[in-house]
């Protein structure tokens, strides 16, 4: 049978429709949080879903969950859209509030819970900086301003932190990787 995305890659029309139910709410949550709940966000959700269908053959279950793969595509499109926006519209303000620790532990997938455990092992400053960068999409400069940390420290925290997460995720699987940045170097 294969995973849902593997079936999409093979042109299974039921699987294509199932993606709406499986991934639509996830994409909507990620997009609306950063762009607000306006028409622009709705259009972007549709674009993301189209990208998911088109790129389904690139999904590798050895590297990530399907939700993570879909989230990568959503994050890319959000970044593109934010680049094109001169400013965030006031009538569709993003909701950058984070859920409580208890709520996120309850609701996160198994894979995501492991990442949270990794995150908890980080020093408090680094953890905060990383979350502002990854989850709220703040730039190095914005994080430095918000945390009163030197810009260089912010950059180091972000890069080292994400690199550590990446290495720990990679070590979870003994499967060969299809493309890693280290291999590209």
């Amino acid at each position, binding site marked *: 049978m294969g995973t849902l995305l593997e079936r999409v890659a093979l042109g299974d029309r039921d699987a294509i429709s199932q993606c709406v139910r499986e991934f639509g709410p*996830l994409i909507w949550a990620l997009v609306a949080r950063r762009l607000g709940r306006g028409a622009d966000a709705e259009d972007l959700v549709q674009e993301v879903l189209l990208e998911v269908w088109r790129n389904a053959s690139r999904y590798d279950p050895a590297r*990530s969950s399907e939700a993570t793969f879909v989230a990568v595509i959503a994050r890319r499109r959000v970044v593109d859209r934010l680049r094109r926006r001169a400013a965030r519209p006031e009538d569709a303000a993003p909701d950058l509030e984070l859920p409580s620790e208890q709520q996120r532990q309850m609701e996160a997938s198994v894979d995501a819970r492991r990442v949270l455990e990794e995150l908890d092992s980080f020093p408090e400053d680094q953890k905060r900086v990383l979350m502002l960068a990854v989850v709220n999409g703040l730039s190095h400069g914005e994080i430095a301003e918000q945390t009163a940390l030197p810009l260089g420290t912010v950059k180091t925290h972000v890069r080292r932190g994400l690199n550590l*997460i990446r290495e720990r995720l990679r070590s979870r699987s003994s499967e060969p990787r299809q493309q890693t940045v280290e291999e590209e170097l």
Partner: protein
Amino acid sequence: MTDMTPQAERACDHALGFLDEGEEREFLATLEDPQLPTDFELAAAELELGVLGLGGGNEERLPEELEKRLEAAATAYGWALSALPANVTQRGNTPAQSPEVRPLDWGRYLGWVAAAVALVVAWSALRSKPEGPVTALPPQVPSVVEPIADAAPPSVAEQRQALLDQGKSQKLSWSATKDEAAKGASGDVVWNGAKQVGYMRFKGLKPNDPKQNQYQLWIFAKGQDERYPVDGGVFDVDSTGEVVVAIDPKIHVDDPTLFAITVEKPGGVVVSKRERIVLTAAAGG
């Protein structure tokens, strides 16, 4: 400073959207497949899902209108894929992909696939509005179905040939879907936008019982009202031999992007549920 290489630092910045457009282009050019997520992107996405408590399948439901749009997009995407040759699938490294499957040249198909998705989505969105265009859809256009062997002069087939001979007509080949009625079916659509005249030719399309169901043509077009397809009329097929059917839309159709044949109840429908799509012919496909 970190102990990471400059390339790894760029990969990290890329994953977080910190690169400007020029830097982004430069970075992507270093990757073998820029569409494939990097490890940094996967790490960032997984971290975001974890922090937000997402990915466990208990996210808030989609807004109703958005859900309808996405479902229509899914149908249109599946419909468009059905129009591709049966041995074509996506390029990639899907483990289940058999060696004989030919990779899909997405650049060739993407335009009309996206157009079909957009058109059907917009059509669906309009259908959901009370003041929508359903009642404004053109009346069904009875088409003449005429096996060539039975044609009387000037036959529909001869009219089709005459139209082709005049030039300036669009000729699109039908692509069969997996529907059992389309097994082995082929043929083409000839359409002349200036004259607003066209003909469909079928060979091998399964004959229908008009008491049970009829074939119906739908035209997706850019020029008229792009928000929903034009009903091209119902018709019957009584021979597996060559059959030619005239198209006679009552409203003007500019730049058709997709012709599609569905199986519907006798008399046809105003809005197709698209449960049985048998043939499609796409411009540029």
